[in-house]
């Protein structure tokens, strides 16, 4: 029986690899001199599909905007979409194909850090560009990646600082739950370093990890209730699980009757889209922190939201037309910032485009003017702390005055 099972696995992997090129599809017909291609590496199947898949369409929408305004350097831009199926090695393989076979001038892709780490050697070897739209653990500074979102020093730590303040509930004990991979582990390492720098003892925090796609949170939430009842001050949960585990976690939290007034959750990867299908009346008050929240009041935000709504309707996409999340905005910003760098460089060649990065700015839907500097490839973004409301969205609880300068390497890691 074991042999049969092994065989199934091997056959599955082989078939998956063989089928991969077939998944690659061009959005438009091929043309030679008049068009230039960019590639998308976002999974529309597997554990990450629910949120990651829609980024393909966002890139499509931004490209449509560029083309409507006359293209980039007079060329029409064409999007090549792949499906890496939430399978990390497949990101590298699809990425190589996009660069070598399709001759894409830039890649937009990856959600989890493990997928980015998988593509990283491919883009570095081929001297290519990857625009990465997620906030992540930092501790990386590749010349081939444009980091569209904030490293922890300018997103996670301000949020923790708020929760430890009197207005935030004077949190003094921390239960860290994460998916088992590099992002949660590094974030929690930074958190622990931060706690010990504040003199918080080791008994005051606890960390645990679950496999990808894990959904049976009953025992862990029992353990959290146990932790919360111990003496030592108000507890909070720092949630770094990703993908389909997030709504599963919240479902069990609702089920066991835990409210934000009992144990607040700081969900570092929690988005508006994760709350779809949940009854958020019993989740009101839980927190997240991102560089964009849907409720921001700015002209650019109204515009992107209405564009997305009509894009979803006119293309019959299977997404909610009224949900706009941070990584979508970051991917959208990325396409526009790439186009600006190309225009500034006067060519599509990657080395020249990289040279042009310094000083590129974009009017982000978050209401901030975001920019690239000369020191690294991190985009300086504003920071928001959001609080879940009853309409499956987030109210803005706090936002930064300006765009803090990104610090890729944390002193606490």
């Amino acid at each position: 029986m074991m042999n049969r099972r092994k065989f199934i696995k091997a056959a599955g992997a082989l078939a998956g690899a063989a089928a991969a090129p077939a998944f690659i599809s061009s959005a438009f017909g091929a043309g030679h001199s008049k068009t230039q291609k960019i590639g998308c590496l976002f999974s529309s199947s597997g554990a990450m599909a629910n949120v990651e898949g829609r980024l393909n369409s966002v890139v499509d929408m931004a490209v449509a905007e560029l083309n409507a305004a006359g293209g980039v350097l007079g060329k029409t831009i064409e999007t090549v979409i792949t499906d890496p199926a939430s399978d990390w090695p497949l990101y590298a393989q699809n990425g190589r194909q996009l660069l070598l076979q399709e001759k894409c001038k830039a890649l937009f892709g990856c959600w989890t850090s493990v997928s980015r780490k998988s593509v990283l050697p491919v883009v570095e070897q081929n001297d290519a560009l990857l625009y990465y739209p997620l906030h992540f653990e930092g501790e990386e500074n590749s010349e081939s990646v444009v980091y569209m979102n904030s490293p922890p020093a300018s997103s996670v730590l301000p949020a923790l600082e708020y929760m430890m303040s009197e207005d935030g509930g004077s949190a003094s004990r921390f239960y860290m739950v994460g998916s088992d991979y590099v992002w949660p582990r590094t974030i929690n390492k930074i958190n622990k370093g931060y706690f010990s720098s504040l003199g918080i003892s080791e008994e005051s925090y606890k960390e645990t990890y679950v496999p990808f796609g894990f959904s049976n949170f009953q025992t862990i939430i029992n353990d959290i209730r146990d932790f919360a009842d111990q003496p030592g001050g108000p507890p909070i949960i720092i949630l770094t699980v990703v993908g389909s585990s997030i709504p599963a976690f919240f479902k069990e939290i609702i089920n066991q009757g835990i409210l934000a007034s009992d144990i607040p959750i700081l969900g570092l990867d929690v988005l508006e889209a994760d709350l779809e299908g949940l009854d958020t009346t019993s989740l009101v008050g839980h927190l997240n922190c991102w560089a964009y929240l849907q409720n921001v009041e700015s002209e650019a935000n109204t515009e992107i939201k209405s564009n997305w709504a009509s894009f979803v309707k006119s293309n019959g996409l299977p997404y909610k037309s009224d949900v706009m999340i941070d990584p979508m905005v970051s991917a959208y910003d990325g396409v526009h910032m790439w186009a600006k760098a190309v225009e500034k460089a006067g060519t599509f060649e990657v080395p020249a485009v990289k040279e042009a990065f310094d000083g590129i700015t974009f009017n982000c839907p978050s209401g901030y003017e975001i920019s690239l500097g000369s020191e690294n490839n991190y985009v300086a973004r504003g920071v928001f702390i959001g609080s879940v409301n009853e309409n499956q969205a987030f109210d803005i609880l706090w936002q930064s005055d300006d765009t803090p300068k990104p610090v890729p390497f944390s002193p606490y890691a």
Partner: protein
Amino acid sequence: MIRGHSCPRFFREMAKIILSISWLAFADNSAVASDHFNKISWIEFRNHFITEICSSKPKRMKAVLQELGSFTVANQDPKVIRERTQWATDLISGIQKKRFRCSKDGKTYLKREDKFLDPVSMAEIKIGDAKYKAPFLHLPVRPTLETILATSKLINSLKNPGTLDLSQLALLEKKPDFINTDQMAYLLKSQLSDSSRERLVFVRAFKMLKSENIDEVSEALRNLSSIPSRKTLTAITKVRKTIDPVKDPELIEIADNAIAEISFSIQIGKAMSIVYSGLSYSSILFLASIGLAIVFGLMGVINLAQGELIMIGAYVTFVIQECLAAVFPSMLPLYLLISIPFVFLITGGMGALIEFSVIRHLYTRPLMTLLATWGVSIFLINMIRVSFGTQNLEFYVPDYLVGGLSVFGDFLITWNRLATIIFAIVILIFTLFLVKKTRFGMNIRAVTENRSMAGAIGVNTRKVDLLSFAVGSGLAGLAGLALSTIYNVNPTMGTNFIVDAFMVVVLGGVGSIWGTVFAALLVGMINVAVEPLYGAVAAKVLVMILIIAVIQVRPEGIFMMKVRK
């Protein structure tokens, strides 16, 4: 149980002192001193309350909410108390639901249905163009807000003597530190049933622990040890440290006894909780794999689309829920029960269609079956994705499945998990009956044990194949129905279950129902027991090692079936 009739007065005095201090610290007109209840009128207080809430400052909001609690019961006239409590309930729930809003220049309104009301007089008003915003509820305000609201609702429910709104009482039990002592004193003075009074006394005991009065502390200790939980243990341990052993040796003894008693109960509660979680997880694994046990066991068909049949079952449940909501809204709470036959028939029919159109032609080529069913699974996922979208579906959760019952220590029985366990048992009985007691089941067993001999004595093996594949699919659909109350329902939900289902079936012994039950229990219990100690990842690793070890020794699984191939 000692009835605390002498306490309210003490508490009222204490509360007045605390309140006047907070009043001095936070109110604009600091001229008001000691007993402000007599000096400012109810109408002045309401205006003050609204100003403080509109400030959105957590400290001021917390203080004024406590004041409101005390103010509602400050007057002895029951009619006045009722009127004020009603106002407090309306306004606080308005604040909570964002129906109460303030503008920058101090204007406010409370929205009820489509009408805008003046929050003080509750008269209808017209609102201008000013921009109104709901005061922001920072985290530290929420517990106070929820507790004062719950207590006010409790007082409101006193209108019918002897009855208390028990759901509100449960809220108070969770946050005893935030109760308003005046309101609590008023509640305890009222006519109550013995059990409600006991619960209220228990809630009050948390605050009484902090009292200066030795008698009160010892009374609180006695009250607290009657309902053991980690929270009471933490509170008592904290107080135990502050007691002077020379001055109050008796108190120390009471505290130590209480700690010992509670610790023991907590251990038992913990053990019960592990067993319950294990049973719950096992029942989920069992539901996910029982359909596969029949399909895989009988025909040796490796059906990779089994997970997607679970998903289809959940979507059928959703469609029926939507239909009921549109046609018979009153039947909505029963949608899970009403869905059972539909889900079974529709997913079963779908299974029959898959068997008839795909699998039937591939019986001699197992590898082809594998690839074909994988294709079917991708087709089903994308069919659902195109027609329903990728987002998680929102299911109506009937009241009888929300929340749970605290049984012992901190052991919580959650209703939806209990329902899943019961459902799994029903499915087990149904499957056993079908396979062991019916003619159809006899045919299934005959074909499993010796296909050609069964065919030779006149069993229509093709028909048996078709029907058992349909039954296996129908069972998978029912699993989807049951899991929709626990897990998220989206097009890719099935892929989470397929690996677990194969693990359970292979470990238990292909084709054996009891083997599946046993393997589900084993895998579920190991997961739950290991998880809190070494984490969920270690639990998965351990289960995998176990399965590899078992299969080395018994390649046919734990429960072997004699089969002639």
